[in-house]
């Protein structure tokens, strides 16, 4: 096995040596986001309903001014495993939106109040309009944003992630970016419409800092105090959780069924193992007493 061991050792040395090359170099700058604790982490993670409802409020009052969420429909807000607003609440908040419908019998488009079956309306009619209104930048659709963003974990972290089930790269990154605005380092001049963000790859981001302490009013608890701190950090966490739900609305069902399936298959595998042993014990070399 000498040749094999030498090869293996050489390969290990190469991998460890080159893995030390900072991954950020490839990504073109941008600090790795910290790992935040989320209620939806791990095999039994679930969404925090109150957090999703607060997150919706942040989305509605801040994000939706520029970002579309065209794949999410109002009715989703009342479905199981989501923010679980009541159906009456969903009808009311859908009716808050003006939806373009038509054409009517006169052949004209018209606006009507939203219905639960409608998708969130887009803030701009098309990409060109969105760019024109945002200094050339296109605010991406947020429907699957939490799954569409990630950052490189690197060796050997990506292997451990299989066991720890870490898959919150998207939300970690989104929350970090929303709270990662800083003054640019000395000597860097930003063009108009550019902002400096610690976590953005390349550090330059078109979106300005939009979350400030006290900006959004959270529902009050029985003691008259807000149900969660009205801070930029909390807003960022809440809206990120909301985006994770929006990107994967059946996550709770998935993890719940997953647990049942894996328990079932493990038990079945156990039974099959003993059945197999019993059948193979008919062969002389597997008969009891020979080993």
């Amino acid at each position, binding site marked *: 096995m000498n040749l094999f061991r030498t090869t293996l050792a050489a390969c290990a040395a190469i991998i460890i040596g080159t893995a030390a090359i900072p991954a950020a170099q490839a990504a073109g700058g941008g600090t790795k986001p910290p790992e935040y604790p989320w209620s939806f982490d791990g095999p039994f993670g679930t969404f925090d309903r109150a957090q999703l409802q607060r997150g919706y409020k942040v989305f509605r009052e801040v994000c939706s001014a520029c970002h579309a969420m065209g794949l999410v429909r109002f009715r989703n807000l009342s479905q199981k495993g989501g923010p679980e607003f009541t159906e009456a609440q969903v009808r009311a908040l859908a009716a808050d939106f003006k939806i373009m419908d038509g054409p009517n019998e006169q052949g004209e488009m018209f606006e009507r109040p939203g219905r639960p079956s409608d998708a969130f309306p887009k803030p701009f009619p098309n990409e060109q309009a969105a760019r024109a209104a945002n200094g050339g930048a296109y605010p991406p659709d947020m429907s699957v944003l939490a799954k569409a963003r990630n950052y490189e974990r690197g060796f050997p972290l990506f292997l451990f992630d299989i066991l720890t089930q870490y898959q919150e*790269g998207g939300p970690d990154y989104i929350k970090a970016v929303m709270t990662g605005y800083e003054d640019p380092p000395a000597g860097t001049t930003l063009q108009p419409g550019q902002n400096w963000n610690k976590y953005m790859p390349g550090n330059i981001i078109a979106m300005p800092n939009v979350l400030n302490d006290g900006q959004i009013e959270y529902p009050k608890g029985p003691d008259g105090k807000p149900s969660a701190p009205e801070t930029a950090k909390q807003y960022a966490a809440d809206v990120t959780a909301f985006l994770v739900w929006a990107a994967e609305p059946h996550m709770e069902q998935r993890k719940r069924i997953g647990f049942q399936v894996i328990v079932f298959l493990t038990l079945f595998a156990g039974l099959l193992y003993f059945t197999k042993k019993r059948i193979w014990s008919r062969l002389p070399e597997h008969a009891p007493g020979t080993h």
Partner: protein
Amino acid sequence: MSGPSTYVPKWGIAKWMDARLPLPRMVYDSFIAYPVPRNLNYFWTFGGILMLMLVSQIITGVVLAMHYTPHSTLAFNSVESIMRDVEYGWLIRYMHSTGASFFFIAVYIHIFRGLYYGSYKAPREVLWILGCIIFLLMMATAFMGYVLPWGQMSFWGATVITNLFSAIPLVGETIVTFLWGGYSVDNPTLTRFFSLHFLLPFMIFGVVILHVWALHVTGQNNPTGVEVKAVQKDTVPFTPYATIKDAFAMICFFVVFSYFIFYMPNYLGHADNYVQANPAVTPPHIVPEWYFLPFYAILRAVPDKLGGVMLMGAAVVILAFLPWLDTSKVKSMRYRPLARQCFWAFAVTCVVLGWLGSRPAEQPYVLLSQIFSALYFAYFLIALPLLGLFETPNKLPGSIAESVLSKIKGGSAAAVGAAAASEPNTKG
């Protein structure tokens, strides 16, 4: 190996059928009475696992096709509608997307098992080549399937891979235009890929039937590489021995598969594919799915376009020539100490190439890709042809039965015992 049929129809209807279309006889001979070497280890269960994966992919794929819209403006949203609105759509789609990865995990284990135990050697050359054809068809199917969600990786993967054909002198550009059905990857490309992605799995199924047929003519290889000498002593009937063992292995495989479907469904994919295709923006870091990475590394190891494409093609095609490149008479690497080391070095080379394929195309990765590409080909073109001539193999057991019994009796042959110890559970 199959020998004369031992099927005796019991009921009238079975006799009637047997005289007209002996399908029950074929099933009986192939999956019940079929003799399998009694010393197969768990690596031999991957054939059955692959069969199950193929069927699973076909079923989930047919279901997905019921809900999917192959159009460049609608494909992305129709996939999301499957994920959001179709009952259990998320499950079926994750089964299919994760299933592709697990299909490749199983097929790579299956291939490496064949490499280790010399399953490609006479009389199983045709069996092996059919396997290579299946592998090639699988790669084409997986590639085209990956294009269908019409995300950024779909689009740019399609662009990069179809552009490989432009390296062909003279007709390259024309071929690429014909692949695209336009002047770039666009809606016609998507619709034809969808059509072919639906067709190819059934072609795979056809070749699998030939593969199994060839297997049942020659019989299975086994960990000793010594052919079956006496059916009575060396083999057990497929049912119940192999069936129950395969079933156990399949369920174990499905435990791991389920873990990924339900808990890590996007781990094996790329976040960028959740961004709808945009012909104006290439993602900063585009890589193929993990199962193509070693070949991608070989492609990028060559600075010349045509050279890279040819070398990558050769990396796949060379597998088909293996029966004649390996000059050793001994099949199993259990009894080939030097070849065994080369085998493991080769396995590590493939993993390293996979890792290099995921790195950006810059130094030192390019240089490393070149070194490991050379090692990859050295296994086929230098190690195996020469080792057969110079290597002194260990003593082979006289028969399968002898090897099984020697292990039970405390390992009378030390060499056999030592070799077996380096392998996973060979007894089940």
